């Protein structure tokens, strides 16, 4: 009898106190897009966008832009205007205005995404060339919800290797690791959304330069985790371009790429020997040449052209004193003693390094015509 009474009291206690964390899904507003920007008066502006479920509402989402102290603070402001309490666990894309990258230490603004256990680390980080507010209020009639549209757009363009796909988890790694500098997608909104390419940042987070789609493809081939397709169109200098249509073009799709990176410390500098093996299919050829007979020659020509492109890429990277590929990781793994000396100034050290890229091409198929 006593025991039953005790149990009843305990169960009642559970019922009375156990429900404080509950919040039904319909009473929650999910933030899908987060924007951070600096306005004309040098204030940090946060913008948030979340979907609206109600049938009566005409617009698919609600947006808010506030000057706030922090991200959390902005969320509280958001709570003041939306119908349900806001939740950050479903953020899809984080948009960062270009002006953010004029100053260092902006990365600290992202603290809440890493600290809050309820938040996810998978949203993609995007640099917006222009104002974030223009983009976040963008509601094209022929496109789905902006968040869906943006994620799909970034996903497909990453699949085509037009840009990288940097989640905030990856960004954290790139910001903290001394052997790599951050690289994020760059978009621009003119009339439509347009993926520009990849923005490379300096070690401290400031903007360094942008890689156009072709450079990004080459850049992506050198990174550790490759994925997607690599359609590349090259201009072959060995053929004249006197035709009106500039017919010295050749397109390939690299299907199978393997790279081997060797690092040595010689003559007070690092030396990188990167071997790139590509198996390609030829998908377009505008100038006349017999592909069946000259396969070896073309392979060599493509290889040389790509090597020249790689050289350009490394020139850009080395002059900017950045290391978006993560060559520092190789230095740390293979030449740890030397690395330790320069690890805090790795960009500097890499700019002095000698980088040789050797490309070997094998054409696997030329398509149905000669």
């Amino acid at each position, binding site marked *: 009898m006593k025991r039953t009474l005790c149990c009843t009291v305990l169960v009642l206690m559970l019922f009375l106190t*156990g429900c404080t964390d509950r919040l039904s899904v319909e009473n929650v507003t999910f933030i899908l897009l987060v924007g951070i920007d600096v306005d004309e008066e040098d204030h940090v502006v946060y913008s948030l966008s979340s979907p609206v479920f109600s049938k009566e509402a005409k617009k698919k989402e609600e947006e808010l832009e506030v000057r706030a102290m922090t991200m959390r603070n902005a969320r509280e402001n958001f709570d003041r205007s939306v119908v349900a309490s806001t939740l950050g666990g479903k953020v899809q894309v984080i948009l960062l205005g270009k002006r953010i990258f004029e100053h260092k230490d902006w990365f600290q603004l992202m603290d809440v995404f890493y600290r809050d256990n309820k938040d*996810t*680390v998978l949203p993609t980080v995007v640099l917006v060339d222009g104002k974030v507010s223009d983009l976040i209020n963008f509601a094209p009639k022929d496109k789905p919800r902006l968040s869906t549209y943006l994620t799909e757009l970034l996903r497909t363009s990453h699949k085509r290797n037009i840009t990288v796909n940097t989640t905030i*988890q990856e960004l954290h790694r790139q910001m*903290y690791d001394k*052997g790599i500098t951050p690289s994020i997608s760059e978009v621009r909104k003119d009339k439509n959304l347009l993926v520009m390419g990849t923005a490379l940042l300096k070690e401290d987070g400031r903007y360094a330069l942008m890689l156009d789609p072709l450079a990004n493809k080459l850049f992506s081939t050198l990174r550790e985790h490759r994925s997607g397709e690599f359609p590349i169109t090259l201009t072959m200098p060995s053929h004249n371009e006197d035709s009106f249509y500039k017919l010295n073009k050749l397109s390939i799709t690299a299907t199978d790429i393997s790279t081997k990176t060797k690092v040595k410390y010689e003559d007070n500098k690092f030396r990188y020997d990167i071997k790139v093996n590509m198996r390609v299919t030829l998908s377009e050829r505008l100038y006349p040449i017999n592909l069946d007979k000259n396969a070896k020659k073309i392979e060599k020509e493509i290889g040389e052209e790509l090597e020249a492109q790689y050289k350009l890429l490394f020139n850009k990277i080395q002059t900017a004193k950045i290391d978006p590929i*993560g060559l520092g*990781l190789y230095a740390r*793994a293979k030449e*740890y003693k030397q690395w330790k000396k320069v690890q805090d100034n790795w960009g500097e050290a890499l700019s002095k390094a000698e980088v040789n890229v050797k490309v070997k091409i094998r054409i696997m198929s030329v398509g149905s015509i000669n």
Partner: protein
Amino acid sequence: MKKYAKNEISLMQFIFIINGAQVGTGIMSLSGELAASSGTDGWMSLIIGWLLNLVACLLIIQVFKRFPDDTVYDLLKRLFGKWLSLLVVIPITLYFTIFCCLVQIKAMLYIKAWFLPQTPDYLIMFLFAIPTYMVAGKGLRILGRYNELVFYLTAWMPFTLLFVLKECHWLHLLPLFKDGIMPVIRGVEPSIYSILGFEVLWIIYPFLKYKEKATQGVIIANSITILAYIMATIICFAFFSPDEITSYHQPLLSLLKMIEFSFLERFDMIFLAFFLFVVSSSWISFMFMAAFGVSQMVRKQDHSPYVAIIAVLIIVMVFVIHPSWNQANEWQKWSSRMGIGVAYALPLLLWAYVQVYIRFHKGDTR
């Protein structure tokens, strides 16, 4: 003669009680702590820890070889007499109680951080207490079955880590021994909390049905534990940059956040929820040991009321103190030190003493 024959456990249960007691909340933060103390070579410290564990286990088995039907309580009473033995017995029991309490508190803190931030902490502890009483109150055989079943139910969990393999940077692990051997040895200390647990051997040894398999049992149990730890640690090291990993409190959970399926996101939450099963087998094992210890000290046969008493005491303690992460970490350090005493020093001392004791009492023992 055999006073524990009624509750005999099989070799499998023996293995899973040790393994269950070892694997608790430690694995979540282990890789971060190892990285802080010894960089990316930290996983090698675990191998040293494994060897240490094996030595300690074998010493305990050697101690018991002459007294196969004794728990540590019977043994100490035999060696030192009723009152003198209390000097050792009380700290051991206290240690088991503290460890049980600590594991529960840590699990509660994880749950509060990830799932139920507003729910009162004592309520979560009360929820824990129900299965604890149901298992630990019943006896060692039920505990063995519980730990066994939990092991099978959660055996899939380490394999989910393989989903992040494609995001790993194996270059992070190189070079091996980058700063020499010293950091590796330094890494043993932070891993102690995670690899402790085999000291339940002090109590469960006489219950084992086939004593000759004890050595095999402890080797398997420790190897399973260390393998799981090494796997988790290496994957964490390969995933996170060595420069960033120390900024995470629980690298393993942060890593699991990356896993995403088309039907399920935030895999860390599912993982943590299921991991509660694994953690429960740890605190329930310690709870049994603590209650058994108390019942031995007050010379009662039935240990189940003490399970209830200890559980209530822990709830009351949480209700009064409301432990925080920092406090729990501080306690973890202290209890690890206690653990070194119970799990590594005591076997050595007792073993030495028993060698001497046998010389002098040749006729008395069997």
